């Protein structure tokens, strides 16, 4: 219904703060500066004039922990007529926020009130992440505020990195790191080649502190783009590796190497009581009648995939410590660690050598040469049979044994091995294994194309399809399948849809149907114009403004072949020209041929690495222009 009023809230209260506005209003210089910045960053509303971050380390005697004090001060300026932005500060059980303030340009408090709430993310059912947030209103061009706070980490282990750039353009930013001489911290500078940084190192006498200063100037805002690769891959940042400290004259190792990291992880695993009595009966029933090792592994792996719901929990130490397998089994839900642990314990009951394994998905740029908790974000289970390792990620639904999701392929995996660990790498897949094949045999009937279409899905294209279709309402499956194929386009009339067993992840998936495609042919005078490619795949992948790599869900290979019978009395007057491209990330070809009876159109699209890298963005942009033109081309038939 139409909303009748612009104002419903006509509350009359009179507690307005009376202050002299003039002290807050932008000066002539500020306005000039804002205009200047706005011409440099025309798409931005706000810029950071000055941003300082100071990192200090201290020792908490009582807790016997090295702590980190991180102090922020940011000066914002408004580049547009009026802007509102959210301010937020994230923290969790391992950190504390103090002394938050927002001041006007004259230093007087702006009276901004922060709310404090759990940070609810869609993909996380529950976590200890919290935010303090407030809305900040810049009423005029050139308006300024200073925003500052202190964040304290209770344990240096949880202080992992800091980024140099920001979601606002930066005029000047400094990061100061004060490292006391009793602490061994390595600062890794990552992706620094993408930015111009002035570095400075000096000893502060009497204090026993080495001070590192990083200064950047005039840096563009980080672009927020969908299907983006993780920020550690491309954003300049400092990674902190706190290795040891010698407070009280004794050296105490923190995370000096991968072994120390593993030791800590393993210590959490050792805290589990692993009472798996309740899983026994189920496990044995799952593997009953299974003869070979592989059959048994498969049976348990698929059972966990199918019967345990993935629900993400990240709560304090529970963000690192797996849930007891018996609990996951009882609840039938768990996060990756819980699911990995359940898989492990069931495998052990079945007599296998099964181990928990830590892994960083492709979102994370680091590998296990870096002893930091930021290196991984995921857990799977590794089963070792003789010399063969089976990597089992039960969070991946409909994933056949022996295949691995794109997000963990080629990633290092840290496998449990008592006091030690084993480092291995998840095998990589090639796009050929994920092939989707579409074969169409069509005829022309007036202004329609009619015929049959056969589709085949393999590998991850199949996994993806199975996951989606199995989550649909049972009574709506056919309807939705029809919608999925026809995209709700009235021009497509589908019939006789048949699909192979959607509960079997080990077989290729076949889908076939009859089709009538209305309005596919335009006839003018003696000629027929055929729009042969209905789906025009990747036409929407427009990277005009894109700055970062584009990530695809998996290595994609789509081969489509369309045959159209030439109607009697017609000959081919013109076929579109062939088109092809081949580079590091994608290989695409369009081929058209004809004989007197039929036209054959073949399109092969291969995204070899499941990514269009930043270096290939311009190649895609250039190709995309051709692609759009290609899809506009019509096949012309003329009367003999």
């Amino acid at each position, binding site marked *: 219904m139409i909303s009748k009023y612009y104002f419903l809230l006509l509350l009359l209260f009179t507690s307005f703060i*009376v202050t002299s506005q003039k002290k807050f209003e932008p000066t002539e210089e500020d306005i000039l500066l804002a205009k200047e910045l706005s011409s440099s960053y025309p798409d931005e509303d706000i810029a950071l004039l000055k941003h300082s971050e100071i990192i200090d380390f201290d020792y908490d005697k009582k807790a016997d922990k090295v702590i980190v004090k991180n102090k922020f001060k940011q000066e914002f300026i408004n580049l547009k007529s009026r802007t509102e932005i959210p301010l937020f500060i994230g923290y969790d059980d391992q950190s504390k926020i103090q002394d938050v303030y927002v001041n006007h340009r004259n230093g007087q408090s702006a009276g901004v009130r922060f709310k404090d709430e759990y940070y609810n993310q869609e993909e996380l059912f529950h976590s200890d992440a919290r935010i303090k947030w407030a809305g900040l209103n810049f009423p005029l061009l050139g308006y300024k505020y200073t925003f500052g706070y202190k964040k304290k980490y209770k344990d240096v282990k949880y202080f992992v990195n800091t980024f140099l750039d920001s979601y606002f353009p930066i005029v000047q930013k400094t990061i100061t790191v004060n490292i006391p001489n009793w602490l061994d911290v390595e600062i890794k500078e990552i992706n620094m080649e993408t930015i111009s940084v002035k570095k400075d190192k000096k000893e502060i006498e009497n204090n026993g502190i080495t001070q590192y200063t990083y200064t950047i100037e005039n840096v563009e805002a980080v672009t927020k783009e969908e299907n983006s690769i993780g920020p550690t891959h491309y954003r300049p940042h400092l990674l902190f590796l706190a290795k040891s400290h010698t407070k009280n004259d004794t050296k105490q190792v923190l995370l000096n190497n991968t072994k120390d990291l593993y030791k800590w992880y393993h210590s959490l695993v050792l805290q589990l009581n692993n009472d798996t009595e309740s899983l026994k009966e189920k496990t044995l029933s799952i593997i009953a009648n299974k003869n070979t090792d592989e059959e048994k592994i498969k049976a348990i792996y698929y059972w966990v995939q199918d019967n345990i719901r993935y629900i993400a929990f990240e709560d304090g130490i529970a963000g690192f410590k797996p849930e007891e397998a018996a609990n996951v089994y009882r609840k039938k839900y768990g996060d990756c660690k819980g699911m990995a642990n359940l898989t492990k314990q069931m495998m052990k009951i079945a007599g296998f050598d099964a181990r928990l394994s830590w892994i960083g998905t492709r979102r994370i740029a680091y590998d296990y040469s870096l002893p930091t908790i930021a290196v991984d974000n995921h857990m799977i289970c590794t089963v070792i049979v003789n010399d063969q390792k089976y990597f089992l990620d039960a969070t991946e639904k409909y994933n056949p044994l022996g295949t691995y999701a794109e997000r963990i392929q080629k990633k290092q995996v840290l496998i449990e091995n008592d006091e030690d660990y084993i480092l291995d790498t998840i095998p990589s897949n090639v796009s050929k294994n994920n092939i989707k094949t579409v074969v169409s045999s069509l005829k022309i009937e007036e202004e329609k194309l009619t015929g049959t279409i056969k589709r085949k899905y393999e590998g991850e294209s199949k996994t993806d399809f199975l996951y989606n279709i199995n989550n649909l309402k049972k009574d709506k499956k056919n309807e939705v399948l029809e919608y999925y194929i026809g995209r709700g386009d009235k021009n497509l009339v589908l019939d006789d849809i048949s699909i192979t067993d959607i509960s079997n992840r080990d077989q290729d998936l076949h889908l076939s149907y009859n089709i009538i495609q209305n309005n596919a042919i335009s006839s003018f005078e003696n000629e027929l114009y055929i729009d042969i490619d209905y789906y025009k795949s990747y036409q929407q992948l427009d990277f005009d403004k894109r700055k970062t790599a584009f990530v695809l869900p998996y290595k994609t290979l789509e081969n489509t072949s369309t045959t159209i019978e030439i109607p009697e009395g017609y000959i081919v007057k013109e076929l579109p020209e062939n088109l092809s491209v081949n580079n590091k990330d994608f290989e695409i070809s369009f081929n058209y041929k004809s004989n007197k009876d039929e036209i054959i159109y073949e399109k092969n699209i291969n995204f070899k690495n499941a990514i269009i890298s930043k270096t290939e963005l311009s190649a895609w942009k250039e190709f995309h222009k051709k692609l759009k033109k290609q899809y*506009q081309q019509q096949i012309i038939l003329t009367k003999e």
Partner: protein
Amino acid sequence: MKKTSNLVTKIIFIISFIQTIAVYGQLPKIDNLAEYIWSEDDQYAELPAIPDKWQNESAVVILSDTDYYYFKAKKALNTHIIIRRIIKLNDQASVNEYSEFNQLGQNKQLIVKITKPNGSINIIDVDSEKVETSESDGTVISGIIYKSVKKSKLAIPDLEIGDIIDYSIYYKEREPIMGVLEAPSVRDVISGEYPIMNYELDIHSKKDFFISIKTENGAPQPTDISPEKGKNKRYSFKMKDIEKIDPIMWEYTLLDAPYVKFQIALEKEKKTEAFVGEEKSKIKDNVTDEEVLNYYKGITVFDHGYKGSDKYLKDKDFSKKERIEEAYYYMRQYYLNQFIEAAVAYQNDLTVDNPFQFYAFPKYITKELKFINYYASFLREEKIPFEMIAAIPRSQGKIDDLLFPDDITLFLKINLDPEKPLFVSQFGNHTNFNYIPYYLEGNEAYSLETGKGHRLETIKKVMIPVSDYKRNNSNQEYDITFVDGFEKIKVFKKSELKGHNKVSEINDRLNSLNFTEEDHEKYNTKRLYDRLKKKRNKKKYEKEFPAFKEKIVSVQKESYEESLEEELDFKIEDFSFEVLETGRYNIEDVLSYKEEFLAANDLLKRAGPNYLFEIGKFIGGQIAIEEKDKGREEDIRMPYPRSFNNTINLTIPDGYEVAGLDKLDIEVKNETGGFTSNHTLEGNKLTISTFKYYTHNYEPNTNWSKMLEFLEAAYQFSQQKILLKKQ
């Protein structure tokens, strides 16, 4: 000061309420919800088998049971609700649907029991399984600290396909409000997205409460199952074997689906906003004409002594009709729109002091009844005969089914010329005189009239007229030229909207700033800026208002650009937008605006040296009726009769000629509506005109095939291409 003390009373009252919850007889203690629901005599301790016909459903509701408890506490009426659902989950989609429960709070209790296919039962320990989700940290507003509210959510453990989930939620409907003597009315639609085996609804009332109940579309009648002794009164509704319903286009659920509606009231007084029966605890299942009359007699005041527009109308040489029309628009300005600037300034902090304090005694009308009282008083003073019409929206049923006053919309019928009555309904920012809201059109309604005095005295039923499709019109004209060879198209679009088509868009097209100026000028009312006396306010407003305006205009432009892209289904650039006429002072005036843009030529297909141009796309996306919907069995209920004119002017580029024009001439017309199109070609100017119209707001199902004829024709036109042939 008063506000604060009210709130304090309310807080104290809530605390005492929580403590005494167990006192009210029938009501179970919150702590014992599980005992109450899964008691020894629970009929669903053993679950019935699912009928074969529903084995393939996503889920089947075995029991849908809702209990409403009403009781009096401290002169207010309280409502507590217990719902129980038992659902067999047949697929992953339904398991996902019921696997998480959110928004649990202190006053919302949940119990859950899962029955496995082997019959084993698992009662969920909600308290230990739930996790906290959010809490407010005690935000301070106007000196009152709101208590922090903790909420939690629950992931249901061990829930699998084939399980039966049995859950119950117990909550308070709203905080009791002192002096409000009726509970909110309830409409419970029985059918839903899953089929239902057993439906039960129970109303737990008291013998000394008033109750009205009515059931519709085949819903069951209430059964009185009150205990003989004591004060309690209980009504029960039971129904079995209910098929699921899928939402479809052009349909009102309440006209087809079975539902139960009811309301409880505490006392029979004038201030009760409910139709109250003669006898306590006797079901009232219809509202008589007399009751409607008495109800409105009690709350209307037509001798208001309204003088609001006197000053404006004075010395003006208006006819009677002009006088009442001008008075309407003046009132819209005086009681509503003149405060817009203050509201905008207040919400966006554009003045130092509260801007409302600069209006001597700000009087604004936002309530329908207040508007009716004011305007009817004016008509009486002018000695112009009128009727007050009390109508219910078509989507909610017929006037004979009326049960609750809050379903009623009021407007006035002015009988200056009995042959040509004029209509007036409550004003909004842009509403027009002589206008009836579309959702009332075509429904029967009550007409109430005053006698010699100012009191309403007579009541009768009348039919609300349905507007003409020609009056509800959108007229769009496109001028299209190719630029940069065939790379891009440049488009100039002008839109003119009238009637309901205007009303549905006007709030989006005008912002709160581009009409205040024309109103101030016309009515000589004082701008907010001129009301500001103190320098600090003036200075702040002077600077911040233009900045705010600039922001609003740019945000609005972006949103128009997006909506145009959506309408045309292609990307546009270099977009500009301008309102030409606001159409705010006369129902016959159009709202008109122009848009200009460049578009990459996604509508062009290459065919050798020639081009195919998808010209049909310019009539906008057309309704596409899929094969499966062609056999529709329901009647067709649309918002209002309406029509759409489109003119497309295309300049044919030099060196090209155009072919395929014969396909652009279409004519499909019948009594339900039509689609026609025709073209002219003069030199290099191709002009295509289309007209699509829906004659009525309702068509019986038997006319569906006729509607399909013109809907199909319009769709086919939207797919039409022309050939630009190289000469």
